C-alpha cells in the first residue's frame, strides 16, 4: 500500500468522521440526559437536510446562513417533538418508560420518513456545491472545498457545543441532570425544561450534519438510515452516553469505514460494523472510553 493511498484513506476517514461524531454526540446526549435510545436520529438528520436545501435553493441564502437556518429549524422541531410526544409519555408511564420511549422513537421515525415521502416524493434534492473550488493538500491530492468546509462546520459545532456544556449555566444544568436526576431536582433545576432543551440540542446537531453535507448526500426521505446506524455504532463503541467518547469514536468509525471501503469494496461496511461491535462487546462491553452514566447492565 502506497503512502499516497494511505493518506487518502486517512483524510477521507477523518472527513467522514466529522459527520459521525456530530450525529453521535447528539445521540449520546439523549442517552445521557434522558436515557432515551433514539432511533429517529436519522430522520432529524433528514429534516436538517431538507431545511438546508430549502434555505439554500428556494430562499437563496448564503451557505453559512442556510446551515444556521437548518440548525435553528431542527432545534425547534426537536423541542416540539419532545413536548408533543415524550413529555406526555414521561408523565403517563412510570415503569416501562425506557422501552416505551424507544418504541415511540421507532414509530416516529417511521412516520417522519413516510411523511417526507408523501410531501417531497422520492426525488433527490441535492445541490452541486455550497462552495466551489478545491484545496490542494499535496501534489497528488486535492479535496473539494465543500468537504473541507463540511468538516470545519462539524468541528466548530462540536467545539461550540463542548464550550456550551462546560461554560454556561444551562450546560452545567444539563450535565447535572445526566449525572443525577434527583440531585439536580433538589438544587432547583427544572427537569422538564432541561429535557426539552436537550432534545432540541440533539436534534440541532443532527440537523447541522444533514444540512452541511447536502452536496454529498442529497436530501431524500430514507437518507437517515445509514447515519443512524453509524452513530449507534459510534455510541456503543465509545460507551453509551459518553459524549467525549462519541467525538473520538466518530473519527475511529470514519477511518474504519474508509478502510473497509478501500480493502473490501462497497457493500461490506455493515459487515465491518458488526465485526467491530462483536469485538467490543466481547472484550469491553462498557465501550472504549467506558461509561457509568446509566450503566450497561440491566437493573
Amino acid at each position, binding site marked *: 500500500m502506497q503512502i499516497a493511498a494511505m493518506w487518502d484513506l486517512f483524510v477521507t476517514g477523518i472527513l467522514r468522521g466529522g459527520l459521525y461524531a456530530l450525529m453521535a454526540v447528539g445521540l449520546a446526549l439523549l442517552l445521557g440526559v434522558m436515557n432515551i*435510545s433514539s432511533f429517529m436520529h436519522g430522520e432529524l438528520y433528514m429534516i436538517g437536510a431538507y431545511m438546508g436545501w430549502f434555505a439554500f435553493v428556494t430562499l437563496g441564502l448564503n451557505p453559512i446562513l442556510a446551515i444556521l437556518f437548518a440548525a435553528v429549524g431542527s432545534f425547534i422541531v426537536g423541542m416540539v417533538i419532545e413536548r408533543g*410526544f415524550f413529555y*406526555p*409519555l414521561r408523565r*403517563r*408511564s412510570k415503569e*416501562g418508560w425506557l*422501552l*416505551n420511549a*424507544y*418504541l*415511540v422513537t*421507532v*414509530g*416516529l*421515525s*417511521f*412516520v417522519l420518513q*413516510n*411523511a417526507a*415521502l*408523501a410531501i417531497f416524493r422520492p426525488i433527490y434534492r441535492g445541490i452541486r456545491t455550497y462552495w466551489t473550488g478545491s484545496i490542494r493538500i499535496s501534489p497528488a491530492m486535492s479535496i473539494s472545498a465543500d468537504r473541507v468546509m463540511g468538516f470545519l462546520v462539524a468541528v466548530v459545532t462540536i467545539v461550540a457545543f463542548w464550550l456550551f456544556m462546560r461554560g454556561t449555566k444551562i450546560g452545567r444544568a444539563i450535565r447535572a441532570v445526566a449525572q443525577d436526576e434527583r440531585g439536580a431536582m433538589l438544587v432547583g433545576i427544572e427537569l422538564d425544561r432541561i429535557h426539552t432543551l436537550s432534545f432540541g440540542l440533539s436534534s440541532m446537531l443532527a440537523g447541522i450534519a444533514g444540512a452541511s453535507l447536502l452536496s454529498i448526500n442529497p436530501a431524500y426521505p430514507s437518507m437517515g*438510515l445509514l447515519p443512524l*446506524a453509524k452513530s*449507534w*455504532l459510534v455510541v*456503543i463503541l465509545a460507551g*453509551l452516553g459518553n459524549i467525549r467518547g462519541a467525538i473520538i469514536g466518530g473519527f475511529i468509525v470514519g477511518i474504519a469505514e474508509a478502510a473497509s471501503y478501500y480493502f473490501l469494496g*462497497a*457493500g*461490506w*461496511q*455493515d*459487515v465491518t*460494523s*458488526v465485526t467491530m*461491535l*462483536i469485538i467490543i*462487546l*466481547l472484550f469491553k*462491553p462498557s465501550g472504549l472510553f467506558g461509561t457509568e452514566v446509566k*450503566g*450497561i*447492565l*440491566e*437493573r
Partner: protein
Amino acid sequence: MQKTHSMSVIGLGSRFSAWLRYVGLSMPIMIMFVILAMVPLFTKNEYVFRLLLMSLFFGAQAMAFDFTTGFINVVNFGFAGFRGLGAYTSALLVINLGLSTWLGFATGAVAAGILGFLTGLLTLRLRGIYAACMAWFVQLALMGLATVNVNLTRGALGLTVPAALDTTSTAPYLYILLLMSMGIYIVLSIMINSNLGLAFRAIGQNLLAARTSGINPTRYKLINWTVACTFAGLLGGFYAHFIGILTPDIMHFKHTVEILALAYIGGRGTLWGGLVTAFLVIPVFEYLKPLMEIRLIIYGMLLVLAMIFYPRGFAGILQKIGEMIKR
C-alpha cells in the same frame, strides 16, 4: 332433565377447554383457527386466500416477536434479518443441494436459531438496548451480504425459489401456514405456561427480584431469544417457497418495524394480541393501498399513540370488553 342435560354440555365444554389449555390452546384461538380452516369450503376466491395468508403470516411473526418483547422485555430489532436468513438458507439449500422443501424449512429455522443464539450469547447479559442494536446490525449486515454476493443470491435481481407445492392455488399454502402457526402458538404458549414462562415474566417485570429468587436471567433470556429467532427463520423459509422470489428487501429494517408495530398495537405479553390484530390491520391496509404513504403514517402514529396512551394495546381493549360481558 333439561337442566342436567345443559349442565353436562357445560361440563363437557369446560373439560374440553381444560384439555385445550393443557395442550397450550385457548378456546378463542381454537375457534379462530377452525374458522380459518373452513374458509376454503365457502369461497374459492384466490384474493381472499392470499389476504388471509398474509394476515396469518404477519400474525404468526408478531406472535414470535411478542414472545421476546412481551415477556423478557427485550426488543428483537433484527427480526426481519433472522426471517430473511431462514428464507435464504432454505431457498439456497433447496436450489443448490436439491433438498426437499420441508427439509429446507427446517434448515432455515436452524440457521436462524443458531445465529440468534450467538447474537444473544454476546448481548443478552447487557442492557436490552445492546441486544436490540446488535440484532439490528446483524440484520443490516445480512442484507448487505445478500446484496453483494450476486453470484450466490443474485442480489437485487431476485432469486427464483422452487415452490413448496405443485399447485397454483393459495389454499393449500394457507393450510400449511395454519398448521405451522398453530404449532408455533402451541409451543410458545406451553413454554409461557410452564416454569420457563414464569421465569420470563419475572425477568421482564423485575430483574432484581428475579435474580434474588435464584433465576439466572441471561440463561432464560437466551432460551427465549433463540426460540423466537428459530420461528422467525421457519416462517421465512415458508415465505420463500410460497412467494417464489427472494430479494434482499426481505431483510429490510422497515419490515421489522412493521412486525414490531403489529405486536405492540396488538398488545404486549399476550401472544394472541398480534395475531388477532393482523387480521384487522392487514386487510384494512390492503383496502387502503391507494393512500400510499398515508397509511404507513397512520400505522406509525398508531404505534406511537398506543405507546403513550394505551400500552396494553388492542388485546387490552378486548380483555376489558370480555370482563364487562362476564359482569
